[in-house]
């Protein structure tokens, strides 16, 4: 990992004049001229009422949604207009995801779930990927679950496995779509503390969409949205 001080101002993600509209059944402008940057090591939360476009924005930033106008830079590279396989490779290498619903692959063990993006990247051998996956599970305190089937563990554990999976390729940024939205208080706290630890001890950049004000209060920076616009940044 790079030194912390010299990289504090390194821009990881930048959105310039992003607009998006749904046209079915009637045209609705969802995002209006979104422009902002996220620096390395920042822990950013996006808040706003339901339907304000915060999730839509997240999926555009994640490169999964390509139906927008404007420009998106990740690691100072322009993402807009790239073909699907290239975007898939960038997601694999540079972005980690944590969703509201845990979305583990039930056919695999916990360890295998964590390993899959690493195997796909192919930067390390299978043994190394396994070793790295175990390291991350240990860090999150769930290494004893490694050999369990993914559908046999609890919701809070699943979310931690999802975080381990997001971390496997040392991504530039981790994005979360209400990662604590489906968890009880205790598990929410565990997940929040993990994020906190990641950003403080490992200088991990985080961008989390949430509607939990308490969660947002404790992050470094809050982006608030209303009617498709950023009203506080």
């Amino acid at each position, binding site marked *: 990992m790079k030194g912390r001080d010299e990289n504090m101002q390194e821009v990881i993600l930048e959105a310039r004049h992003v607009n998006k509209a749904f046209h079915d059944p009637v045209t609705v402008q969802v995002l209006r001229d979104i422009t902002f940057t996220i620096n390395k090591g920042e822990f950013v939360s996006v808040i706003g009422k339901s339907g304000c476009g915060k*999730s839509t924005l997240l*999926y555009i930033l*994640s490169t*999964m*949604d390509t139906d927008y106008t404007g420009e998106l830079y990740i690691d100072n590279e322009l993402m807009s207009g790239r073909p*699907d*396989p290239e975007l*898939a*490779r960038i*997601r*694999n*290498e540079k972005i980690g*995801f944590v*969703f*509201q*619903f845990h*979305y*583990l*692959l*039930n*056919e*695999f063990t916990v360890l*295998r779930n964590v390993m*899959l*993006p690493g*195997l*796909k*990247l*192919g930067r390390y051998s299978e043994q190394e990927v396994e070793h790295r996956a175990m390291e991350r599970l240990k860090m999150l305190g769930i290494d004893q679950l490694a050999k369990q089937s993914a559908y046999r563990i609890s919701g809070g554990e699943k979310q931690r496995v999802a975080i381990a*999976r997001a971390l496997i390729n040392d991504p530039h940024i981790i994005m979360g*779509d209400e990662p604590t939205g489906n968890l009880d208080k205790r598990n929410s706290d565990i997940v929040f503390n993990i994020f906190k630890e990641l950003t403080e001890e490992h200088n991990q950049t985080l961008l989390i969409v949430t509607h939990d004000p308490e969660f947002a209060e404790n992050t470094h920076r809050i982006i608030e949205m209303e009617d498709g616009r950023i009203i506080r940044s």
Partner: protein
Amino acid sequence: MNFRLIFSIAKSLLLARWRQTLVAAVGVTFSIAMFVTLLGFMNGLNDMLDSLILNRTPHVRLYNEIKPSENQPVNEVDQYKNSYNFISSVKAGITRQEIYNSGPILQTVKADERVLGATPKLLAQVFYNEGTIDITGVINGIDVEEESRLFNFQEYVTSGDAIDAKNVANSIILGKGLAEILVADIGDVVQVTTAQGERFPLKVVGYFQSGIQEIDKVQSYASIATTQKLLGKPANYMTDIQVKLHDLEQAPVVAREYAQLFKVDAEDIQTANAQFETGSNVRSLISYAVGVTLLIVAGFGIFNILNMMIYEKMDSIAILKATGFSGRDVNLVFLVIAMSIGFFGGMMGLLFGFIFSAIIDSIPFNTSALPTIETYPVNYDLIYYFIGGSFSLITTYFAGFFPARKASKVDPVEIIRGK
């Protein structure tokens, strides 16, 4: 492209729904097994029916046909050569059925490297005398050893020994149906009268059964020497030369060549037995059609199961895509799933097809019409297994193609947000 990863994901998805997978694979197995069995059995029957006639039929037959001369004298005269001559009441002249110069022809034919063997034959029209009744019939004078070697004569002699026709003087092998009419046991003597009016006693040394009753009622066999004696002809007298070639397909060419070379009539097996080939082809065509239909039905089964699997696995597909698997990877995963169902189902199908064939092959099949057949005939030609195997892969590829493409087009955002 990390194929090991693709394969391992496909394998996990397959094993997670192993019951569905099994149903799909059993569909393929069943259709491939039926395909192989059906074709093997059908072609076994074809071969048997063909061999009824073809194995005993010379590939090329040389003979003299009784027919009017094509070159009437008037056409040869210079004066009228270029006119159009009308000749009425043309009749066949005195043609001998004997093949002229038979010895050298036989030698030349035997020396031809395309020829497996050639044997003379002499046909004699006779009456069998049974009390006051005369029964018309034909005695085939043959070279017993060569006839056995080239045309499996000994296989059709159901009682007695074929070679006795040569070893026992003045002996005859009667057609089974004829023997029943004459009430002649082996060892009995039957009286025959030739067309010239000579009466001749012949000793019965065996029965002959071709599987075609009409033939068995009129035909009988004797050595060529006995037949020559019967007709009062010298030892080089023969009416047919039967030629067997190494390659049956060359028969028309060879026949044309010999007809020109020896100035005789030559008939090839394709012309003589055209109807058999047609029958075989139609039967093969029907069995291929049925087999391919079975495979297509199995293909639809796989198509359905993959489609269902994709709806079930929407979440997994979305998460794979979100974590960096491209549409192409997902497409490959589902193609691999389809193809492995095809591959393993197909392999099992070939195995079961072989087992079914072996079972059919061991079912007794005794019929008086087919003395040489003891069980149902089956053809084990590898080509059917090859076609079956390739077809299982091709069908499952197409069955997997559209579901896989659909899976590759799944929009992860829609799935993840829509929950």
